[in-house]
């Protein structure tokens, strides 16, 4: 009964067709742990999807963990609520929390470079040197691509877990992300 034509590209664009529930939650939790540990090691904090900032001194790991968990749990809770309101299917909490946790995986590609090769220093002080500016521009473009990948996964996590599609899925998803992003502007450490 298994489909032999499952392409790797399908798994990269829509992994939640194949992985959800407890397995996705376990993988997602592992990814979150790596992100928290790495941000703590690199001395950075992140309060929105694309806002990383270096912290003076070392931030307690508990606070880094709280920020990362909030960035996953708050949208997941809101998406779960939207799913419960809009979907005709019986949705499972473990699916929405598991798939949205695993959807954080692309963000690792943004977090990991922060601890290596002086990227932290370059981001901290964007001096006028042309080479430095080019490197920053390349990193910004790379960040946009990774962020787009993350949003595709995050949206698919919501759509698959709640069996939503079309304008209902798109509008509710955009509303949740916009609300969370706006609210996160007021969160400071």
């Amino acid at each position, binding site marked *: 009964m*298994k489909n032999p034509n*499952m392409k790797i590209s399908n798994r990269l664009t829509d992994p*939640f067709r*194949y992985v959800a529930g407890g397995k*996705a939650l376990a993988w997602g939790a592992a990814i979150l742990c790596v992100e928290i540990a790495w941000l703590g090691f690199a001395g950075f904090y992140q309060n929105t999807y694309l806002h990383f900032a270096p912290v003076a001194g070392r931030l307690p790991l508990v606070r880094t963990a709280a920020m990362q968990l909030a960035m996953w749990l708050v949208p997941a809770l809101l998406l779960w609520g939207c799913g419960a309101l809009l979907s*005709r299917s019986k949705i*499972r909490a473990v699916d929405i929390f598991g798939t949205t946790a695993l959807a954080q995986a692309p963000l690792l590609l943004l977090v990991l470079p922060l601890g290596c090769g002086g990227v932290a220093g370059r981001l901290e002080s964007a001096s006028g040197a042309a080479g430095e500016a080019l490197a920053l521009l390349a990193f910004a473009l790379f960040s946009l691509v990774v962020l787009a990948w993350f949003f595709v996964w995050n949206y698919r996590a919501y759509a698959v877990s709640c069996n939503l599609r079309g304008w209902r899925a798109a509008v509710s998803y955009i509303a949740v992300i916009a609300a969370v992003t706006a609210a996160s502007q007021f969160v400071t450490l």
Partner: protein
Amino acid sequence: MKQLPVVCPSCGAGLRIRSMHCPACDTVVSGDYALPALLRLPVAEQQFVLDFVRSSGSLKEMSRKMGLSYPTVRNKLDDIIARLETSENSDNHEKSEYENLEQTD
């Protein structure tokens, strides 16, 4: 698997059964019968229903056999349920229209 045509290739309306034939004794039964709702599903969805019954109605078992996630399989089942409901609603609508016509005659 040979697919049973369920819509008219000319106008797109739903097809009905006019006659059935016994290959053993050559008897032909004529009448006007609606296709059962399950037969009006696409072949892939009919296969899904068969596999679902064979899995004792377990979505977890289905997801394991199909190599798909649980919500993906559940969504497929929900889509089939929605399709069957639409099909039944249109049947009921046709039936009530037919009854109304008979009463006016």
